């Protein structure tokens, strides 16, 4: 089992949230663009195997939170563009809240221990 995969598994819920958020702010994007955006935001601190995006994309699509559609890029390549759905937006709001609560809890915990 590679370490990347393990880290992704740990990040499972998180990656979903990140993708949703990215699509919410940036509008429809293809997988590569999402990956590039993530690397950019992370300031290349954590290396993402771009392939690990796919399970998240499938999950989100199955939940009907995002929708994929084939379009042409500016360089005239065809690519599957994902966009967030209404359900997805709603889910993002509640997931964000949940994440904040969880993060706050972990943060407090870590501070106490320190």
């Amino acid at each position: 089992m590679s370490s990347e995969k393990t880290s992704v598994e740990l990040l499972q819920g998180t990656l979903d949230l990140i993708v949703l958020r990215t699509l919410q702010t940036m509008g429809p994007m293809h997988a590569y663009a999402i990956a590039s955006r993530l690397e950019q935001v992370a300031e290349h601190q954590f290396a993402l195997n771009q392939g690990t995006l796919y399970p998240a994309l499938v999950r989100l699509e199955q939940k009907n939170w995002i929708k994929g559609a084939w379009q042409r890029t500016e360089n005239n390549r065809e690519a599957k563009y994902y966009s967030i759905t209404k359900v997805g937006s709603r889910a993002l709001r509640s997931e964000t809240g949940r994440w904040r609560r969880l993060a706050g809890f972990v943060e407090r915990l870590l501070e106490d221990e320190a």
Partner: protein
Amino acid sequence: MRRFLLRLWDAFRHARSEHELDREISSHLGLIEDEYRRRGLSFEEAQRAARLALGGVEQTKELQREARSFALIDDLKRDVRYALRTLAKSPGFTFAVIAILGIGIGASTAMFTVLNGVVLKPLEYPDADRIVRVQTRSTTTGRMPDAMPGGDEIDIRRLDGLFDALAYYHGGEMGVQAADRAEFDGVRFVHPDFFHVFGVPPLVGRIFSLQDAQQSVIVGAAFARRNFGTADAALGRSIFIENRSYQIVGVMPDTMQYPANVQVWAADSLEPQNKNRSGYNYRMVAKLALGVSNEVADSKLSALANRLASTYPDTNSKRTFVTVPLRENLIGNVRSTLYIMMGAVSFVLLIACANVANLMLARSSVRSREIAIRAALGARRRHLIGQMLAESMLLALVAGAIGIVIARLTTATLLNIGTRYLPVPRIDEIHIDWRVLFFAAAVSMLTAIVCGLIPTHQISRLGIRDAISRAGSRGSVGAGTSRMRSVLVVAQIALSFALAINAGLLLRSFAALIDVSLGFRKDHLLVTYAHAPARGSIFDQSGLENYLRAGQAIDDIVERLRHVPDVGAAGAVMGLPTGQYDSSGAYAVEGKHSTTGDFRLLPQAGYRLSGPGYFQTMGMGLLHGRDFTDADVYGRTPVAIISEALARKTFPNEDPVDHRIQWGLDLPVQWATIVGVVSDVRQYSPASTVDPQIYMPLRQHPYAANEVQIVVRTGGRPESLIPMVREKIRSVSPDIATKFTTMEASVSDSIAAPRFRTTLVSTFAAIAMLLAAAGMYAVMSYTTAQRSSEFAVRLALGAGVNGIVGLVIGGAARLVVIGIVLGLLFAVATNRIIATMLFGINTHDVTTYAGVLLAMLPAILIAAAVPAIRAARVDPIRALRTD
């Protein structure tokens, strides 16, 4: 849920998703390559770098696929693989489960095959749902005689628009002269429209038109082959029934099965010859016109019945007409028997399920260490349950397949035995079809779920820590598992006890049937059915000479048989007990009953005709007066002999002899002098009540005397007389058709249905008891194994072997007592169903209950004792060391 469905959907459109994935990933790679190319890498370098950035094409695909479908397909595959491995590792367990379930599924599938063929499947005639029987129904008692009077038939035929085709028919087994031989066949005289009702096209030739009345005949393919070689050869030939010639105009295929066992359909007149409204002489079958429902037909028929009731109040009051779907009419009698069989067999299946659940449970507790470790390593409860289910599904599938094979093999045997005892209609239509397969599959899946879920229920309640600690020590039995297993054992005992009680009641009742006094001696009697053809009709008194000659021929035969050395006695009768001919009706005694007015108010009796020596041959006692003599012939003073029951009823305190009696068998109705009283017999079967009978001399009633049963008493085997009797009859006339049986066989046939029921239910009960004992054995073996270290300690501390065995049996006895009490309640609740089938005992027959208990208790206790004794014999040191 939505995700689950999507995944399911995905599993089906796997190919499409794969294609989409390919496309997306290659586009993704392209995009990365573009980027790298822009940064100045070569084409090859860009390609390589793109793959690296993605993390491997195949890996990515695999990740996506997993997300797409992991729960359903992959889990299933993994579970099945795992299940196959585990099952292969314990072949004993696997074999036991498959065998037990296979028997259960096989037995129920076989029973269902019969039920399906007889009861559930529609008849195989075109528009079979429109074929109905038109029957009469008493408006006071609700009774529905199968037949109806000829006069009413004519009025029903005049109704407009109700029926596409309508046909009366009558007849029975009788002699047919074909080619140069005479044989007994099922013969029906039918209205020429009969075949329009059924719509079965003939194999060769044509069906009747109205011009065929009383001239043409249609025969079955088997009859044609037997008498003429082929169906084609039969066409145009003539056969004789009652000395009347009929030309064969058509041959019917074997699919024409109505009425059952009929091979000869002779075209009768357009109107019934007996037009009275009191004798139920004809049956009616019809095809409803398109768009006419049973309700519409019934309302028109009942309007007609009301009109007839006011026109002919003496005969037609309190009578209405109804249509009954042919299918209902056909299966009415066997349905209840088949449902009871189905009920009994589902008991067996339930017990098999409980047994298997028990085995699986035992195994799951043995495996609890493995399960606990897997759970600790992160396997989810859902996965563990899924895996147990996969195992039970696999087992049930194999068992189901074996069950179908068992069903296929046993159905034939079942029918073979069954039809010997019980006239099963539509026998040719009984085979395994999609309904049966569906049933077997459904039953297998259900058993799998039941067997698989009971143990998993246990697992899911199990805490991980709990399981590990329990698996670690073998000192005591886990309370939860043990309770569940005890419940299963109790259920098995209860079910099999209930089934055994019902079987016991049927057995006892059957024994009573065999034991009952029939009123005659059935041993050493050969029965010969003989039909001397005679042409003419009682209604216009035509052909009297023919009938008198036929009667004389029968007399001659009996006379010749009496002089054969092996023959002790011989006599002729029409209406032998348990035989084929039956007639009954009202009677009136001079000075006691009115012979004018409503004849239905008169007392009823069976009408039997007999010749001199019949009572003596049968071993019936002439209590009073004299037997018929050769002088009691047509034209002399009419005489009669009455049965004891009739004498008791009508002559309670006086001598019936010399009183005059009359009845409605034939014309003209005359006063007959009672010359004797004969002992009672059970007329239809050992289960019949003892009813009043009137015996009349055969030779005084010529129109009823040409088709008779001749009984011959011999010291040896009755069958050995057959060639001699056949020869004697041929020597009198080659036209006389004959058919042989023995009185024993005839009586035995009359209780065929109860015998069949009893045999089958007893078999099921025996299987059930075996399974229950096996279940007890299994649970006790397991429990004692679990407790072996405890026993070792006890033994080491000085307990005797007997003490240990007592301990175990004591535990078992508790289960047995609970099971038997529950089974008793269950038996009482269910045996109401068979109450009407019992004879001589009621459902609370204490002897039966006690007997079943005595048979079952030792079997189950022995099953418990064997493992106990084994456990107690173990060397304490060894048992303690294994920990």
